[in-house]
């Protein structure tokens, strides 16, 4: 992975090569195509196994079919926020745009996966408890944590120069990730320790054979999907910055042009 050159801001040496655009027209590349194919095949297998072929669970009945997709979704979400935190620390240290955009892309995916987690949790709840929402530890924690990261995305929408936006996002990314274990602990105690039927049992050991395989298949498929999404989301963010930069060189040239004619146009103000 080539790391960005050490200049900190978005500026880069003027006079970029201007030969006709020959680069690939999309954010795709061989790597993403390979990942893409693997993801699609994996999803197909997961659907086949999870929904149709595996037997109903002794204890959970058919609701386990949601779990096959639900547990990987929430694990990917937490992975996304851990990546955001690590990238945020790296940004504060290295100050390169690469880490800033990497953290932001991962955070956005994390919020998306959290939203799906809550959706699945509610559907699962409808079957198990007969009601969409119960102040059940996992659902509550997910909802609260998602809000902290919605704040992260809200901050990034505010027009700001890249350095300020990067630093503020990095700080929020770190503050929010530390909140995850604390909120987990607080919500667990809040609902009392008795372990009611919670939707997030780890991939319970007494699952065997096909069920266990499907559970792990789900995890791997979602990880590959996450990687594919992250690469694309990062490239979109990177291109967005470069597209904004295109104007900078023109602005610098135009600004220097003012110098040649000092007394007429005067500085833009």
């Amino acid at each position: 992975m080539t790391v960005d050159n050490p200049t900190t801001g978005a500026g880069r040496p003027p006079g970029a090569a201007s030969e006709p655009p020959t680069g690939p027209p999309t954010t795709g590349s061989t790597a993403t195509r390979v990942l893409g194919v693997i993801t699609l095949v994996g999803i197909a297998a997961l659907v086949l196994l999870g929904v149709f072929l595996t037997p109903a669970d002794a204890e959970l009945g058919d609701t386990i079919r949601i779990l096959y997709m639900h547990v990987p979704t929430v694990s990917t979400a937490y992975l996304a926020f851990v990546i955001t935190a690590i990238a945020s620390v790296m940004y504060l240290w290295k100050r390169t745009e690469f880490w800033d955009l990497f953290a932001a892309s991962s955070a956005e995916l994390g919020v998306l996966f959290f939203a799906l987690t809550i959706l699945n949790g509610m559907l699962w709840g409808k079957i198990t408890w007969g009601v969409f929402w119960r102040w059940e530890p996992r659902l509550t924690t997910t909802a609260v944590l998602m809000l902290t990261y919605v704040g992260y995305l809200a901050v990034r929408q505010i027009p700001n120069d890249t350095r300020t936006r990067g630093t503020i996002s990095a700080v929020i990314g770190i503050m929010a990730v530390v909140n995850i274990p604390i909120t987990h602990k607080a919500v667990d105690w809040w609902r009392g320790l008795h372990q009611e039927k919670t939707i997030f049992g780890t991939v319970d050991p007494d699952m065997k054979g096909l069920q266990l395989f499907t559970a792990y298949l789900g995890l791997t498929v979602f990880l590959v999907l996450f990687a594919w999404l992250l690469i694309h989301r990062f490239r979109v963010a990177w291109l967005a910055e470069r597209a904004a930069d295109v104007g900078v060189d023109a602005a610098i040239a135009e600004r220097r042009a003012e110098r040649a004619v000092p007394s007429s146009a005067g500085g833009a103000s």
Partner: protein
Amino acid sequence: MRDAVLVMTKDLRLEWRSKVGIGQVLPFSLLVVLLFAFALDPERGVLDRVTSGLFWVVVLFSSVLMIERAFSVEAADGIFDALRLSGLAPAAIYAGKVAALAVQLLAVEAVLAVAVAVFYDTTFRTPVLTVGVALVATVGIAAAGAVYGALAARLRSGTTLLPLLLLPLLAPVLIGATRGFEVALGREAGPGWPWVALLGIFAVVYLTLGALLFRPLLEDA
């Protein structure tokens, strides 16, 4: 350390001069206590069941107002640049702001506790636990609040952003403080100290994190 005291005294003197905390935030919190009474119809005995939860929700809202005020003062008149040039260590500025915020918040909480005791006739059976929970929770609120206050103060829509950023993060504090008070009010059996421990972890974690993160925040955010 001397710098932190300097910043704290400056903040408290600023508060004493402008009286925003006592003059506006405190009356606001008492007002909300009344509003809840109107909303929850005291006769039906609902109030005493929700007293501690209500108390801490009011404290959280008041803290958002106070934090927003504490940092909008710094963002005005180019003072943020002066702070960056001043030679004060960022961690010292952070510690000073957190201390000043905690002192003001505790003052509001004290008056609020009296009001709640009178309006909702609650009796705090174990005052030691009550004060303990309040102290640790307030430090936690101030510690996390100061970081978000600093970064929201210089964003154009910072005032509306601060609650969105801060309140979800303070969820564990709200849970811990409320349940701690429930035990203190004798409305819940069981030990109170686990909640104090949870609040303590929150406070310590965010104090250290805040001190570390204030440098990049001040440096070029």
